[in-house]
């Protein structure tokens, strides 16, 4: 091969140059996927915008109503409460998993016996089928027969109403969300810790720094960008949380755990008000996008 390269340098160079020009033609590889993405992802986005300015029920005429669906949200108490509830649920479901996830990542980055097994077990909650684990949590929350109140009674703590009282339902759901999604934060931060240089730690150890000092002054500042990414991903997922809330409480008791996603489901598929539901989707999407961008700008400022 090298012989041909030497004997015909111009032809080879020519072919190589053509190879570089292929860059544009690599698009062809993405065409089939692009068509499918356009059909199942982009088309729904556009059609949602279209429906959101119409009075669209499943049957009957679908008159154009302009921004009436959006105006309705401004006076819809149930929608506004759902937004507040979603923000409350999301804030708690970001903070708790991020703190626990960073702690877990620091622990799992140390070497110890059976680390692989422990890490796999730790990751299981996020891989398990959400509906299945939600049903088991529901049984555990049972006020009289549930195992959780029994455990509380062993510790001398009075029984909790868990998801059966409007004051404890959201903290309880946050607990389930934290149990389920702390592993994802751990994995992302662990990936960050794995990429760190080892020299600063050795220097710190020689200077007699303890574990907390090394975390506070070396790990934490270096891993900060990964923590922010984990927090943004966690926030997006918490805003969108559906399966666990739907299965465990269906938004109840009353509407005390009705987040935006649950209200959206009810509006579109229980009341079949597709126009109003679509307008909610648009607002929901903008909300997610704004909060994500806000958090990412925090990251840029901090670095």
């Amino acid at each position, binding site marked *: 091969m090298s012989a041909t390269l030497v004997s015909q340098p111009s032809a080879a160079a020519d072919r190589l140059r053509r190879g570089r020009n292929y860059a544009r033609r690599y698009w062809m*590889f993405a065409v089939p996927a692009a068509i499918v993405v356009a059909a*199942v992802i982009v088309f729904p*986005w556009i059609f949602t915008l279209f429906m959101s300015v119409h009075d669209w029920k499943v049957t009957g005429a679908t008159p154009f109503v302009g921004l009436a669906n959006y105006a309705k949200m401004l006076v819809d108490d149930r929608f506004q409460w759902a937004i507040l509830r979603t923000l409350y649920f999301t804030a708690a479901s970001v903070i708790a998993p991020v703190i626990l996830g960073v702690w877990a990542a620091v622990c799992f980055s140390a070497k110890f016996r059976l680390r692989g097994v422990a890490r796999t077990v730790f990751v299981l*909650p996020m891989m398990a089928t959400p509906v299945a684990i939600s049903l088991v949590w529901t049984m555990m929350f049972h006020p009289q027969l549930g195992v959780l109140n029994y455990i509380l009674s062993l510790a001398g703590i009075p029984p909790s109403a868990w998801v059966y009282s409007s004051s404890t339902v959201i903290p309880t759901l946050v607990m389930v969300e934290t*149990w389920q999604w702390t592993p994802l934060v751990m994995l992302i931060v662990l*990936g960050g810790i794995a990429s760190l240089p080892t020299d600063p730690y050795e220097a710190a150890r020689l200077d007699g720094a303890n574990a907390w000092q090394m975390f506070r002054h070396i790990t934490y500042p270096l891993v900060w960008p990964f923590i922010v990414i984990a927090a943004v991903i966690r926030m997006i997922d918490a805003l969108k949380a559906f399966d666990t809330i739907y299965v465990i409480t269906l938004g109840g008791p009353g509407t005390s755990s009705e987040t935006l996603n649950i209200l959206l489901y009810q509006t579109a598929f229980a009341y079949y008000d597709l126009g109003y539901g679509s307008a909610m989707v648009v607002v929901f999407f903008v909300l997610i996008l704004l909060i994500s961008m806000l958090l990412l700008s925090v990251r840029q400022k901090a670095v």
Partner: protein
Amino acid sequence: MTMNRFEQRLRRFAGRVGLYFSVLMLISPAVLFFLWMASLALKNEADNTAYPPVFIPNPPTFANFVDVFAKNDFLRYTINSVIVSFSATGLALLLGVPAGYGIAKAKATKAAVLIMIARITPGLSYLIPLFLLFQWLGMIGTLTPLVITHLVITVPIVVWVMIGFFEGLPAELEEAALVDGATIWQAFRYVAMPLARPGITVAMILAFIFSWNNFIFGVVLAGRTTRTLPVAVYNVLTFEQISWGPLAAAALVVTAPVLLLTLLMQKEIVAGLTAGGVKGG
């Protein structure tokens, strides 16, 4: 000097104890949860509703599992889930692996942003328009709408994982193939794709798991006979007010394949999740 060494050793010992204690604290919620799930599934009804709770099934019974398959059409739902998840994963690989290659090679970051926005969008927002579309096409009540909507989950996962993998491959080998007169398709098919096999495995496992676990699309689009397992467990069992044993057994049946896959392929799964933070729905 000896005092100093003793102190150092003590500190190291305390650190080890703290580490093991932390790890124990971190994994016990998961361990206890799944043990309790198994305990519920393996006990008879009297033990399941006893107070104080019975922790260890004595003797363990498989009657709950028999119940699940005998009293419901669970075999059909299992087949539905298998068809939907395998089709959605297979189609996503067929579409997504070349797409990931094309995007990585053309350095088309804008296409990656589109995938990222798809990741941000709540699953419900695809459902309203697609529900109308499938109704209009008369496809509600078949498995086709489920396979198509599951592509919303699987295609972005595959593309996302594959972009990362193809970007990490050295370009020299394909360039050599191109110099030798291979077409770009051949360079992809015979050079890049075999090298990216570990990436394809990661993408396949993650796409399959998140498709298998999906609930939201099925709950809207599935009819009585086209339910996938998660929908079936929720709909059939909770509406019939079935007792705890069979319910826990059914939940275990639904999630067992995913848990087994995670235990067997933990290295691949951890690699994939760390890279992308992917999750469907």
